[in-house]
């Protein structure tokens, strides 16, 4: 019925984001090697409870239907439940990502009692060896224990969220079986070279053959696996597109608020170049979303650049902006994981440029053995 295709209209931006991620804290009990936000230590500039509630009130006025809360580990914040309740009471549904460390039997019951709340437990392997290599010692057991608590409390359908890597790609069926055994929903997402992921991406990202494997696995599971729309670069592999909007939503339908209130184009680009402003600025979040220079620019038609002559551009849209940026590939170049094979040359060319580093690093300091005494 409409004259312009929806995707073109969405590229021009919405009045408010559909999908807003809010990392509540940089503090985390874990230190995953692919952490998008290089989390570990709390930032002293973190938004206060009052500031966070004011942002929620603003999101309510903008009619943001739901938010994705993450971190760091969001449950570390002492006001976690207070903020979640404030959000839900204001008609903003909450989906939060957690490693599960703070979900005991009591918390599981408390979470179960809340409406409009979804929980995603992060897990990157169906066995402790595979998972803990990425997420740290003991993290597999922690996640499974949290799932057991949620099941025992009768939470219902929580989500298990998996970042697909070279080492767990063969476990996709097992992840599905694990989710089924808990009455949970499986969600798989793409590994990005963002945050600490910049250092681990080259060792962890799926091989070209594995990308084909992921594409076919997803096609076979379109109805029962969530992806957060994150694999659209794979659409160049076949006639049949994966479900979803098939576009980069950064600054158009998606954005990130970080723990100190800075607003970035998406959760994968915590870097000054993609910082649109702060919720602490005059005019607050709404002003940043509606008028920031960066978001205005992202909503203008983007050049296909080096991909313009490729027949697959309509299918893959040139891939992920963040994946290019943090591997040193120009933004109008191919995705580093381009399924038509253009990524390798681009990565090679990029090896001579300085790859941008994330804006902030909240990783815990390395423990170096200290020798005490005289020389």
């Amino acid at each position: 019925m409409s004259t312009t295709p929806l995707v073109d209209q969405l590229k021009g931006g919405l009045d408010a984001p559909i999908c807003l991620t809010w990392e509540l804290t940089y503090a985390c009990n874990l230190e995953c090697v692919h952490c998008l936000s290089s989390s570990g230590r709390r930032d002293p500039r973190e938004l206060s409870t009052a500031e966070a509630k004011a942002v929620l009130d603003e999101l309510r006025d903008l009619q943001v239907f739901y938010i994705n809360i993450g971190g760091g580990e969001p449950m570390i914040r002492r006001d976690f439940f207070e903020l979640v309740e404030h959000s839900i009471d204001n008609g903003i549904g909450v989906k939060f990502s957690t490693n599960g460390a703070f979900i005991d039997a009591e918390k599981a019951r408390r979470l179960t009692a809340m409406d409009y709340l979804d929980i995603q437990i992060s897990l990157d392997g169906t066995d402790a060896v595979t998972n803990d290599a990425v997420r740290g010692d003991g993290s597999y057991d922690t996640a499974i224990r949290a799932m057991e608590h949620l099941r025992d409390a009768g939470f219902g359908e929580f989500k298990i969220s998996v970042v697909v890597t070279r080492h767990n790609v063969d476990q996709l069926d097992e992840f599905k079986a694990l989710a089924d055994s808990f009455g949970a929903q499986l969600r798989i997402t793409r590994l990005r070279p963002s945050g600490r992921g910049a250092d681990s991406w080259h060792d962890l990202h799926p091989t070209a053959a594995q990308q084909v494997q992921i594409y076919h696995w997803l096609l076979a599971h379109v109805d029962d696996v969530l992806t957060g729309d994150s694999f659209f670069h794979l659409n160049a592999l076949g006639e049949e597109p994966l479900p979803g909007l098939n576009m980069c939503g950064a600054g158009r339908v998606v954005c990130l608020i970080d723990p100190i209130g800075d607003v970035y184009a998406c959760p994968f680009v915590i870097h000054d170049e993609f910082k649109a402003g702060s919720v602490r600025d005059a005019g607050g979040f709404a002003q940043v979303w509606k008028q920031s220079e960066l978001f205005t620019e992202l909503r203008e038609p983007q050049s296909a650049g080096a991909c313009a002559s490729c027949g697959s551009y309509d299918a893959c849209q040139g891939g992920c902006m963040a994946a290019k940026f943090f591997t040193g590939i120009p933004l109008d170049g191919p995705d580093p994981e381009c399924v038509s094979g253009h990524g390798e040359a681009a990565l090679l060319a990029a090896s001579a440029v300085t790859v941008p580093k994330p804006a902030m690093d909240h990783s815990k300091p390395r423990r170096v053995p200290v020798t005490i005494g005289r020389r």
Partner: protein
Amino acid sequence: MLDRTLSLNPQVALRPEPFGALAYHYGNRKLIFLKHPDVVRVVEALDGQATIAATLTACDIDEPRWPSFASALAALEASEMLHEHDATR
């Protein structure tokens, strides 16, 4: 379809957008794009009208366009955005 009585599910919120509106169902978490301002007008007008045909008339929608509205509304019913009204007409 045209003689049926549908209304917006109370669990659904509409948010105006340049292309029409977004409809979000807090119960089933579905998000639907209403891709034309006329569809939004019709959906908002459903309440208080006896039938879909009456709503379309009230909204000044030309009859040749009715079938496409009927299918758009049927899709919205399938995703539980709209539901059958109590047949107390």
